């Protein structure tokens, strides 16, 4: 009998296809099954379809042998309960109230008595071995306690099948073992678990079978863990994107005159610095006592829906160095960038810019210290599409207060001078435009990125945070960005390069720091090894 499964499920969100003809089935009851995949592979959507929380375009869901249409309008189905990644518990409710919300049937006539309600849920929690007081507010609970409430909630329905969406993502490391023990004990009582996880080591530790999703499709049907090795699973998880990367690499190899430094493989030089022209100090001889231009120290950020946090993350960038950040998308890169540029205040830890603690500084103050940012989201973060080119080139320098000299006349900003300054910047970066007051939206992607470079890669820059700087650019645009970053390095700027294009990381980085689940798991130096990096990105440290 199929305990849990789905048949030809398709889910669209607007124009994107979240799940594309997904058919999966798990037959062993009282076991723990895993689903793995990159961010955006469709794992969370699958969970929600199975739990009947969202409507599919087509297909059916199978629960304990019975098939249900998956197209029913957002109707919750009996038999399967979902423990959400971000918990579905109202923060200002007490534990008892939250559980009551999900199990209204326990109140006679819709009316309940607080004391009796609290006792009943206290018993339930205790029965499952959780030590959580039903009187405490949800928002005052530690993540593992909230998860305990969620699991209690899920089991109190009498469901025998529980889906957990990334249950370890929100837990501190020391709580993970406890969760695993609890799940194993419950599985022994006949409860079937489907667990979404993206740390392979945890999958191996906990699950009996693993299935892999990529790009909304099943690339590995449920397979017993004993019959498949980590590298194979990692290859399937990385599948689609590494192929993309390979084509990108060959294109780059054809299009670029000088071989990108640090590129590995049989042909690439082992010594990154020897390829670099110009008289910069070799990074092997770099004086490590020299002050880092950027120091991220033990930064922790809480995870929220759609953005993973950081756990005691540290990274240093020295002058004249490009440090690559590699990781499967959605492992904390966004939080790291936001913390460095000042869009997000970390819960713990600090950010030091050129020796000065910048943790409490506003964005403008950080820019005055030489911090520059090339955002991944060009259209909404990097530029104002409705403003003119020269405004886009000059607004940040002027409003941050480092680009004002020479543009002030009689105490006021002179538009004429500002515009002239802006045009100078644009011309230095060979932005192709008709008039500098034309709107930004009229520029093509590569040209638009030039405007961003014109603003961010200037003489005052000390640290550049480059986030997916060549995403969506053609060869010429890619070349320009890479050259810009290399030139900045030659001039002693430190670059933090966050990219999901492995070849870009190999081509530019003096070191690559691997981020997984918000933690720094590995640091690699040239010559880089693609397999080793892929392994670190999915599984963690090699050792």
């Amino acid at each position: 009998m199929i305990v849990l499964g789905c048949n030809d499920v398709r889910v669209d969100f607007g124009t994107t296809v979240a799940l594309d003809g997904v058919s999966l089935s798990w037959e062993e009851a009282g076991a723990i099954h895993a689903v793995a995949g990159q961010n955006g592979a469709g794992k969370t959507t699958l969970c929600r379809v199975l739990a009947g929380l969202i409507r599919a375009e087509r297909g059916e869901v199978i629960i304990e042998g019975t098939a249900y249409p998956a197209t029913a309008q957002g109707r919750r189905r009996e038999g399967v309960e979902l423990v959400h990644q971000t918990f579905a518990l109202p923060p200002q409710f007490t534990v008892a109230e939250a559980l009551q919300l999900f199990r209204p049937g326990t109140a006679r006539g819709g009316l309940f008595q607080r004391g009796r309600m609290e006792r009943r849920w206290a018993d339930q929690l205790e029965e499952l071995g959780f030590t959580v007081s039903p009187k405490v507010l949800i928002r005052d609970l530690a993540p593992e306690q909230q998860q305990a409430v969620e699991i209690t909630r899920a089991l109190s329905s009498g469901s025998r099948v529980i889906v957990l969406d990334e249950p370890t993502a929100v837990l501190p490391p020391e709580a993970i073992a406890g969760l695993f023990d609890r799940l194993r004990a419950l599985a022994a009582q006949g409860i079937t678990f489907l667990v979404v996880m993206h740390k392979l080591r945890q999958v191996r530790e906990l699950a009996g079978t693993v299935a892999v999703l990529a790009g909304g499709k099943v690339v590995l049907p449920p397979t017993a863990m004993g019959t498949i090795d980590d590298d194979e699973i990692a290859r399937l998880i990385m599948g689609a994107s590494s192929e993309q990367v390979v084509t990108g690499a060959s294109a780059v190899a054809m299009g670029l005159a000088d071989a990108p430094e640090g590129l590995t493989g049989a042909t690439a030089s082992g010594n990154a610095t020897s390829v670099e022209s110009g008289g910069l100090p070799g990074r092997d001889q770099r004086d490590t006592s020299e002050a880092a231009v950027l120091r991220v120290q033990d930064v922790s950020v809480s995870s929220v829906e759609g953005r993973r946090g950081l756990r005691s993350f540290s990274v240093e960038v020295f002058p004249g160095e490009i440090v690559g950040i590699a990781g499967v998308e959605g492992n904390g890169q966004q939080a790291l960038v936001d913390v460095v540029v000042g869009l997000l205040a970390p819960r713990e830890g600090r950010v030091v810019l050129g020796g000065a603690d910048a943790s409490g500084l506003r964005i403008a103050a950080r820019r005055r210290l030489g911090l520059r940012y090339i955002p991944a989201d060009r259209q909404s973060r990097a530029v104002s599409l409705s403003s003119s080119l020269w405004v886009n080139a000059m607004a940040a320098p002027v409003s941050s207060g480092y680009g004002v000299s020479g543009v002030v006349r009689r105490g006021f900003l002179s538009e004429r001078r500002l515009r002239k300054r802006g045009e100078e910047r644009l011309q230095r970066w060979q932005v192709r435009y008709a008039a500098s007051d034309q709107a930004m939206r009229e520029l093509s992607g590569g040209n638009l990125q030039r405007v961003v470079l014109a603003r961010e890669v200037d003489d005052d820059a000390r640290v550049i945070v480059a986030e997916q700087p060549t995403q969506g650019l053609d060869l010429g645009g890619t070349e320009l960005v890479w050259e810009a970053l290399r030139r900045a390095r030659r001039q002693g700027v430190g670059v933090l390069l966050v990219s999901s294009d492995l070849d870009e990381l190999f081509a530019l980085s003096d070191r690559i720091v691997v981020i997984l689940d918000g933690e720094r798991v590995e640091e690699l130096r040239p010559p880089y090894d693609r397999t080793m990096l892929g392994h670190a990105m999915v599984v963690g440290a090699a050792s």
Partner: protein
Amino acid sequence: MNEVYTFVNSVLLGTTPILWAALGCLFAHRAGIYQLGLEGLMLIGAFASIGGAIALGSAWTGILLAMAVCVLVSVVFWFVVVILKANAIIAGLGLVGIGVGGTSFLQGAIFHTSGAVSANAIIGAPVSGTATGPLSMLSSLSLLVYLLPVAAFVVWVVARRTNFGLRVSASGQYPFAAKAAGVRVRLVQLGALCITGAMCAIGGSELSVGSLHAFSYDMTAGVGYVAFTAVLFGREAPWGVVLASFIFGIATALGIFSQIHAIFGLPLEFIQMMPYIVTVLALWFAGWRWPQAGSAAEGAFAELRE
């Protein structure tokens, strides 16, 4: 001593319409909808109850009519705000405009007067006027004042001790949780808005058939806004709202009282500013102490929204 009794009397008189409306509005707020149109609803209620009292010959049927009309208006408000997703503040202000203009128009169209419309059928007052001694505190207060403790208790039970109350709060605080719990958020919001409408109707009726026995143009004179503030100030909690409404009622009574008796030699104008000063202070305090919770969940799980 008589001054004290008179003062208490006017506190009760001033608090009652605020409290009825605020207790109702509590549900709208808890369901996550700012019902800024209380003023309009109260005016409509005040007018409908007078009209009903005149046409049907009984103040109580007048109040029932007023409640029906206000529930209907609330359904329309729900449709505009929840279904058509109009901005609730703008829609609320529009509702106030409809309340002021609509009642004034109907007053002219039906009763052919722009002055006061009075009714003979009124809500009884258990203690009649001109009594002296402690009982004079209750002098001429309508039965709607006496019903308040019952109403407050019922509101507390419904909000804090029923599944419906939990669903209302969950819908407002964290719609995703509500949805995950199988709650039909929009229907719960409809219910909450209808309760608000019905209780605003009673609050408005207290002004017309309850105490003044007449309807006149824009007779609520800001009571609805004060009630709205009382809900914020009272942290959307039943007893907090009761307390907040009394504070506003006292401020209002001080204004009236000071017209007759000098208070500590303070200028009359200053005392009359009290309700507004208290309102501003209350809003500042409410905003400072209790920031909007649940906004972190805003935007999350967008695809799960109904």
